[in-house]
C-alpha cells in the first residue's frame, strides 16, 4: 500500500521537476513565444507578393486624423495658393522653431548644402553635383513656398525629402534658411553702432 503511494509520489515529483526544467524550452517549431505569428515593422512576409509586411498605401488614399488636417490646408501642405508660391511662412516663427529648423537642416540638408548653405557639403566634396549657394541673389529672391516645394517634390538631381521631413519641420527649415541668408547678407546700417564701427575700421 504505502509502496504504491511512494511510487506515485515519486512519479509526480519527477513530472513537476521535468515540467520546470523544460518550461523555458521552445519545443514545437513555428509555435514559439519568441517568434509569434505577428509582423513587426519592416519585417519580411509571405502574405503579399512583394514580401513586405509594411505595404505602401495605393495612390490617392485619403489619410485620417492629423494628416487629413495637414492636407486640407493647401498653403501649408503644398507651399502654394492658387498655383502660386506663397511668400510667407504659414506657421508661427519663434526661437524654438528656428532652433528646430537648424537641427533638421544640419541632419538632412548640410551633407550637400553645407552647414552655412554654400553648397559645399561633405557629399559634394565626394563628387555629388554642387548645388547653387543659398547666398546668391537668384536663390535669395525666391519666395518661401519655393523652398518648401523643393523639399517636398525634389529639384533636378536632388530627391524629395517629403518622406523624411514632416511638413511642420519643412517650414522650420525654410525659416532657418532665411536666417542663414540674412546672416551672410546683413545690411551694414542695421547693425548696432559698436559692431558697425568695428567692421568699418576693419575695412579701412
Amino acid at each position: 500500500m504505502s509502496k504504491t503511494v511512494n511510487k506515485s509520489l515519486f512519479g509526480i515529483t519527477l513530472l513537476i521537476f521535468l515540467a520546470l526544467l523544460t518550461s523555458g524550452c521552445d519545443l514545437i517549431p513555428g509555435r514559439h513565444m519568441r517568434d509569434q505569428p505577428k509582423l513587426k515593422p519592416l519585417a519580411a512576409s509571405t502574405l503579399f507578393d512583394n514580401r513586405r509586411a509594411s505595404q505602401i498605401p495605393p495612390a490617392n488614399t485619403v489619410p485620417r486624423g492629423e494628416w487629413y488636417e495637414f492636407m486640407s490646408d493647401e498653403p501649408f501642405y503644398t507651399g502654394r495658393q492658387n498655383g502660386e508660391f506663397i511668400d510667407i511662412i504659414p506657421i508661427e516663427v519663434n526661437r524654438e522653431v528656428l532652433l528646430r529648423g537648424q537641427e533638421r537642416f544640419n541632419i538632412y540638408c548640410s551633407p550637400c548644402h553645407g552647414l552655412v548653405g554654400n553648397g559645399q557639403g561633405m557629399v559634394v566634396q565626394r563628387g555629388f553635383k554642387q548645388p547653387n549657394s543659398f547666398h546668391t541673389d537668384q536663390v535669395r529672391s525666391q519666395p518661401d513656398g519655393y523652398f518648401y516645394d523643393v523639399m517636398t517634390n525634389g529639384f533636378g538631381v536632388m530627391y524629395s525629402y517629403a518622406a523624411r521631413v514632416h511638413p511642420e519641420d519643412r517650414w522650420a527649415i525654410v525659416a532657418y534658411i532665411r536666417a542663414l541668408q540674412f546672416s551672410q547678407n546683413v545690411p551694414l546700417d542695421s547693425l548696432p553702432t559698436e559692431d558697425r564701427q568695428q567692421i568699418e575700421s576693419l575695412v579701412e
Partner: protein
Amino acid sequence: MNQIFHPSANVIAKASIGVLIVLVGVLSVFLYFFVRSSWMTGVNISEPQPVPFSHLHHVRQVGLDCRYCHTSVEEAASANIPPTETCMTCHSQIWTDAPMLEPVRVSWRDNVSLEWERLHDLADFVYFNHSIHVNKGIGCETCHGRVDNMALPMKVNTLQMEWCLECHRNPAKYIRPTDEVFTMGYAETVPAGHDPLVEGHELVAQYGIEVGRLDNCSICHR
C-alpha cells in the same frame, strides 16, 4: 546470505554522490556561461549582408547623422531601416558604377526590397520602444556601441533581460544630456575630474524618470 556488494561499494556510493554534486555544479556553471556566450547571443558577430553597408564610411567619414537614415528613432518604437530611396539620394550620382552597389540599383529599378539580415531582434514577448529612451537621454552608443567604427553592423550587448534591468535599476550610470544622444565617443568629451554619476542623478531627476517603477514586469512584458 551472500554479500551482493563488495565492501568497497560503500566508498563508491559515497563518492558518486560527491561526483554527482560536482557534475551538477559544473553543468550549472557551463549553462550560465553558455547562454551568455556570443554563440547564443550573437554579440560581436556580423552577418553577411546583401550590400556591405559601412557605418564607418557613412557616419565617421561622410559625417551623416543617424536620423538621416534611421528617421523614426525619435518618434516611434522602431528606429527604421532606410528604404532603397534613401541610398539613391546619393548613389544615383556617386559610385554609380560600383559593383558593390549593384543590389541597390536593382532594388530601385525593379521595386523589390533589399533584405537586410537583422541582428538586433528581441523576442516577440518583449515590448521595446526607441523613442522613450532617446528622448530621456540614453545614447545610441550606450546600447549599440561605437557604430561609427563598424564596417559591418554588430551587436555589442546581449539584449538579455539582465542587461535591460541593469540599466533600468540605475539609469543614472548611463544617462547623458538629450542633445548628446547621437554623439559617438561621449565619455571622451566629458571634462576630466567631472563625476558623470553626480550629473547622472541630476538628469534622472530633471527628466522625471521614476526609477523604482522601471523593473516592474509589465513595463516590458505587456
